[in-house]
């Protein structure tokens, strides 16, 4: 088997692997939302409610927040 043929097969199998990963991700997205672990749709509001003073949709524990707490 020449290198080119090998490259061809490698590409084919990598494609399969990536497709499985991608479909796995789809299943994960829907399952975690169904179980109530995550709510992806509320993240859409990040664009709408984007004032610097508005409450974060998903609050982070960033350094700035800590600093803010100190003041």
């Amino acid at each position, binding site marked *: 088997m020449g290198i*080119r043929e090998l*490259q*061809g097969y490698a*590409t084919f199998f990598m494609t399969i692997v*990536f497709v499985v990963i*991608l479909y796995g*991700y*789809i299943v994960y*997205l*829907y399952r975690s*939302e169904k179980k109530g672990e995550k709510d*992806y*749709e*509320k*993240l*859409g*509001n*990040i*664009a*709408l409610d*984007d*004032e*610097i*003073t*508005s409450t*974060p*949709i*998903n*609050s*982070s*524990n*960033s*350094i*700035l*927040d800590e600093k*803010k707490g100190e*003041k």
Partner: protein
Amino acid sequence: MQSNAALEYDYTIAKLYTYTAILFGFIGMLIGTLIASQLAFPELNYLFGEYGTFSRLRPLHTNVVIYGFTVSGIFATFYYLSQRVLKVSMAESKIAMTAGKIQFVLYVIAATGMVISELMGYTQSKEYAQMEWPLDLLIVVIWVLWGVIMFALIGIRREKALYISMWYFIATFLGVAMLYLFNNMAVPTYFTSGGLGSIMHSVSMYSGTNDALVQWWWGHNAVAFVFTVPIVGMIYYFLPKESGQSVYSYKLSLLSFWGLMFVYLWAGSHHLLYSTVPDWMQTMGSVFSVVLILPSWGSAINMLLTMKGEWNQLTDNPLIKFMVLASTFYMLSTLEGPIQAIKSVNAIAHFTDWIPGHVHDGVLGWVAFMIMSGLFHMAPRMFKREIYSKKLIEAQFWIQTTAVVLYFTSMWIAGITQGMMWRAVDEYGNLMYSFIDTVTVLHPYYAIRALSGVLFVTGFVMFAYNMIKTMTSAKELTEEPQFRTPMA
């Protein structure tokens, strides 16, 4: 005492890139119109000696619209929306702010260097990668600085979840970084030859088929990571924000993102169909191009569905018109590309005018529409003034839409006619037409394309005028508009 309420988003850098987007947009499109006219009326090649020939100006056109206009638009929108979706001001990070200013200065130097050097005839002879090695090095620095700023802002963000637009901008940063480095690997001959020839000259580290493969790995991904990915990032922010409707399906946006990332990188070899690259690689390019329809349409349909129940906005908000049409042109373009990548279609389409036709319904209808509407959305928020004239935007919309339609329809007809004539053989297998026969037949379509260029540039001048008036003399706003952009 510093209170959080006094904190404001800092649009200094976003404003600077807005200016360059307007400037380079005008220059790039003007050159485009000139070279389109040269194809229809060849005597226009002799206006400025060697500096005005098609061969000198064509790379300048593509480079100025890609790296001048589009990249400025990407940076302007990034520095605007990244702060907002991360809920952090650039003023809060000294590193980001300083790096942003340095990046802008270097960007102006690089862009000016690009225009001058390409006008002088310095080129690597690689499509969309014509800039010679000193400029390449400068661009690496500019890009790294962008990464520093991006991750500095992400590091101090208040919003834990990264909004989908940020994912697209991160992908733009990483994708271009990787591909640019690989494709521009070159040896400056002056240093390796002991001082012979021009200091600007370099030779690619790859040769033959490998060079072609690396070149189109980059070339197609310039389309992917400059013309598609960041523009999708823009529409995911600007359309929901302008319409007041949150994105129709956030999950679909995530899926489309990862789908696009998986697939887009491997579609480039469709530029090399019927060439000396391995057959399986050509087939892979075709297959991945067709699969690419799914993630592309996933985003486009998601955007159209975001307008569900709010279609009345299409009639009374010209910015929504621009964005919805941009999304529609994105769908058209991402269907047309895969069709052209099918081997049997490519046998007719390759090297014909159908290809620039395809490129331009994407870049004019999708990229330019999205950047202009993004900048229109940003202007009242950055300059605290309403848009100078709604009527002017409406007129601009119709003039430019007509221009895009004229461009791609004329090039469809020209391209397919050309492809058919090149292939036509008589009963003995002799070619039926000579090259000049095709030129004669195509002349009217080239003239239509030149006219479409004139119309599009006219629309762009209206955009520039409206923006400048908005910055300087439009009615001042007392408070920032929440969704719909106010206009007189």
